[in-house]
């Protein structure tokens, strides 16, 4: 099977058929971090990928300038100097 990875885009060939969860395990990818796409469909970790199949593992993580909570939004209240319970 051919496995397409992104960021950066690259391809990996894996011989034989496997369940999606085994493909992910072999590539050390956590299941919740990618969409698994075959053709124009999403498939679940229990599905079997055949030798002739092409699947794309599309990362779901985005990041960088995560806007800090309310930052730039002047604070509605200042922080307590920690005296938490």
């Amino acid at each position: 099977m051919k496995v397409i990875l992104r960021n950066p885009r690259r391809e990996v060939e894996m011989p034989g058929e496997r369940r999606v969860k085994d493909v992910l395990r072999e590539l050390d990818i956590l299941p919740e971090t990618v969409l698994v796409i075959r053709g124009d469909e999403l498939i679940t970790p229990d599905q079997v990928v055949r030798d002739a199949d092409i699947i794309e593992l599309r990362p779901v993580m985005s990041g960088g300038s995560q806007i800090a909570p309310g930052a730039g939004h002047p604070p509605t209240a200042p922080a307590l100097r920690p005296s938490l319970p």
Partner: protein
Amino acid sequence: MKCRKCGGTAVLELRRHNAAFCAPDFLDFFRNQVREAIRKHRMLEPEEQVLVAVSGGKDSLALWDVLIDEGYRTTGLYLDLGIFDYSVDSRRKCETFAARRNVPLIVASVAEEVGAPVPVIKNVTRRPPCSGCGLSKRYLMNRVALDHGLGVVATGHNLDDEAATLFGSITHWQTDALARQSPALPSTHAKLARRVKPLYRLSELETSAYAFLRRIDYIVEECPFAKGATSIAHKEILNRMEDASPGAKHNFLFGFLEKARAAFERAEAVPLRECVRCGQVTTGTVCAFCKLADQVKRTL
């Protein structure tokens, strides 16, 4: 794997809900989560006009899509950060989406507003690029909302974003940030638009799946400056926790919002004033955005 609702073939497993869904039932689940977020935090009035901050990525375009379908009158705001081909491609995705859904899109340019694009700001300030980028986004989102008479800005922050931000704030015990972390920030000044995050109940996997199933053409490539960003490192740690214990991210964020946030919020409010230069709201005399623009002008 079978759909929890209809028994058909599932397309997505949601381990934290111990469930799997087919495409139509997942889309229903997604919309219900957005409705619940809006209802619980009184984010939006029915048919309210909303400024939706869009980046061309999966989250913000998914948010725009669902808000349109829920009947809100939306205007998109794309901020051109000037980050090489990444900005060219992401702007095109937003313009294509707006044209396809027949909704208005405002485009503002950081280079025009600050005096230089994000890659130059990074060199001038000698700080991580995400710093000047985030500052510019926050400022311009609010100003554009005010300029267009819109009282609320919606952003595409998801559960993973919020959990990672919380993790970062706790790691450094940034108590002021903890006090402000919320799915909905009210307007505390006449010149401050409300800010709401209707996707905060949904994970990145879920927003990605929604965008894919709705055939939204979003930018899959990462921002070239995201590599090595602290928020990414925090997400990776949280993903390991989630893998070992499904629901960990949800419990971390929702536990904070329900049980801990109020403790940080108790003290009295900081007085707000208007920046002597631009008139936008700040806690100081000159706002951080004007200081950044000054620094850029001095250096270039």
